[in-house]
């Protein structure tokens, strides 16, 4: 196991930030019932009437590496449910859209976290205290909105004469890599790493964790979502059934309260992984199912 000692000053900082966040915390988020198919589009007109809270963010400063000055300071969060699905609309200001990654560039992202049981530590859960994490990624959205970010998209002027075991013509689009001998070179794809899949079905990855370093993609992927960048801001919807028949279904349901927390990454500020801004837990007040 990793041996890490947190300096006292740092603990004090975390404590102070935690208090600051608690003081600034808004009233619980009211989640009204809507009698329609769950809205996955951030442009759905009904969002205008949905209650919103401003969720303040603080730096993640427990697990290395951290960034004590993350660029996203707060999120505007709304949510609605239709009895079986819940949808969140998360908005934040971001001066640059970062949706494509090269070696030295990173993408924008946002995530929400819900305890699988009644409660869990804010630090991505803990041993035996599992959390469900729904993570929207701008690069996956780009794959869906345009096309998979292959060499021809990333480097329009690149030319490769030949790849072994791949038939066809340059630029040998990745979907043409049907020969198993060729696919062996595409490690992440053949091993099922969600990042490497050319055929993205959703921009949201559903994951579980029991503390830092344990983030794991779940076998069953039930979450959907869509992000739109407009006028210097991201507007992202993340939706999931309350119950997907999954052992990792949270204990949330209509008519009750449930905790949720958020994290956001500004790719333009090289934020990725542990370098992120996080919220404290806030309370969802889920409206009863109406007629």
């Amino acid at each position: 196991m990793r041996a890490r000692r947190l300096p006292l000053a740092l603990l004090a900082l975390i404590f102070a930030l935690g208090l600051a966040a608690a003081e600034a915390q808004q009233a619980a988020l009211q989640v009204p019932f809507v009698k329609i198919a769950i809205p996955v589009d951030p442009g759905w007109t009904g969002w205008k009437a949905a209650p919103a809270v401003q969720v303040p963010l603080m730096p993640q400063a427990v697990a290395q590496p951290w960034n004590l000055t993350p660029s996203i300071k707060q999120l505007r969060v709304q949510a609605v449910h239709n009895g079986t699905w819940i949808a969140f609309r998360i908005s934040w200001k971001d001066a640059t859209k970062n949706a494509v990654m090269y070696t030295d560039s990173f993408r924008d992202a946002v995530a929400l976290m819900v305890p699988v049981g009644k409660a869990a530590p804010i630090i991505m859960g803990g041993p035996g205290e599992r959390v469900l994490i729904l993570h929207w990624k701008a690069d996956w959205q780009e794959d869906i909105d345009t096309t998979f970010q292959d060499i021809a998209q990333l480097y329009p002027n690149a030319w490769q004469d030949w790849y072994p075991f791949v038939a066809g013509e340059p630029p040998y689009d990745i979907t043409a890599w049907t020969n198993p001998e060729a696919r062996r070179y595409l490690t992440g794809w053949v091993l099922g790493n969600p990042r490497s899949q050319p055929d993205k079905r959703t921009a949201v990855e559903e994951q579980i964790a029991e503390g830092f370093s344990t983030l794991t993609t779940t076998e069953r992927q039930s979450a959907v979502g869509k992000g739109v960048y407009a006028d210097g801001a991201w507007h992202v919807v993340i939706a999931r059934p309350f119950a997907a028949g999954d052992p990792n279904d949270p204990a949330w349901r209509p008519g009750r309260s449930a905790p949720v927390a958020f994290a956001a990454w500004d790719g333009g500020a090289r934020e990725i992984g542990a370098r992120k801004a996080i919220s404290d837990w806030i309370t969802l007040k889920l409206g009863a199912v109406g007629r």
Partner: protein
Amino acid sequence: MATVKNWQIGREMEYPFPGSRPRRQFAAVFDLNKCIGCQTCTMACKTTWTVGKGQEYMLWNNVETKPYGGYPLGWDVTRLERLGPQTWEGDRYTGKTLFEAAPAGEPMVKRLPEELDWAHPNAGEDEAAGTLDRGAYFTMPVHGMWSFYLPRICMHCTYPACVAACPRQAIYKRPEDGIVLVDQSRCRGYRECVQACPYGKVLYNPVLRISQKCIGCFPAVEQGTQPRCVTTCIGKIRLMGFLSPPDQARADRPMDFLVHARKVALPLYPQFGLEGNIYYIPPVNVPRGFLRQMFGPGTDGAIETYLRGKDDPELLGLLHLFGDAKEILESFRAFPATGEAAGYDGKGREIVRVPVKEPDYLRPFYDAARQVYRHNIT
């Protein structure tokens, strides 16, 4: 942070994980005096492992010309600059390693190479530096410039920076052979390892969106075969084997002999603190200051030992076993009486036997049978 023993810097140091040496450690020795920069190793590696999508500019093995070359550009000088001036006292490094110089919130000093830094694998190729201050190495013709080729692969470090940096612990060092691997199913492409490795040997695949690195040809090593870059080297400058810690070294084992017994093969930038396991016989015709910064305080001794090699039957014998067998040599022996050297597998069976001196053949200037004259008659 844990405290671990790093013999290359002659002291204990801080590392994020407790020390746990593998049962055997993958290692190799590259003789820089013999490298001609032909890139056969590079192509052998490239065609074996990195011909997939997103690997177009990815070289797990590269050969760069020092002092100006570098892949990624400036991997060494930028890291040295970030670390700042540091000190050795004899064989003990009294400066700070990359782990010990870590800023708050980071496990070590890092640097993310820029996209274009990976786009010039042969930058500086064959460019020479200035003259030696003790005069030109060659006196005829006037030839006052120096340069040398530096072939590089992953160092499969004892204390890998990539392992220390991965927040997901998706990189691991195999206990059976010390080879360091990125788990391609768990990697999330955060590039903390790309920033952490001072040797620039973890690379990002922008199509698969995960990081990749030299795998030490582990499928070959598992079958007792040396890696592709070693077996294809036409200059026979490389030998791969298993290296023991200094207190368990055995002089009949090739790596132990070169690194611990004769100390003729040196670590690359030992001051970084990673205890890398690719060792170099330093080039004899390069200014010592440059070499000492690169290979540490053992430089002068290594060059002296190397230059005396003709009088050292064991060293001479082992150097002749470089590149002569594809199998991993577990032990070797020199036979001065017959002028031979032999390498053995783990069961003591002879794998290869070579003459240290090629036999002379004298042939007549005019070959009457073929009715030809010979220009080369020895």
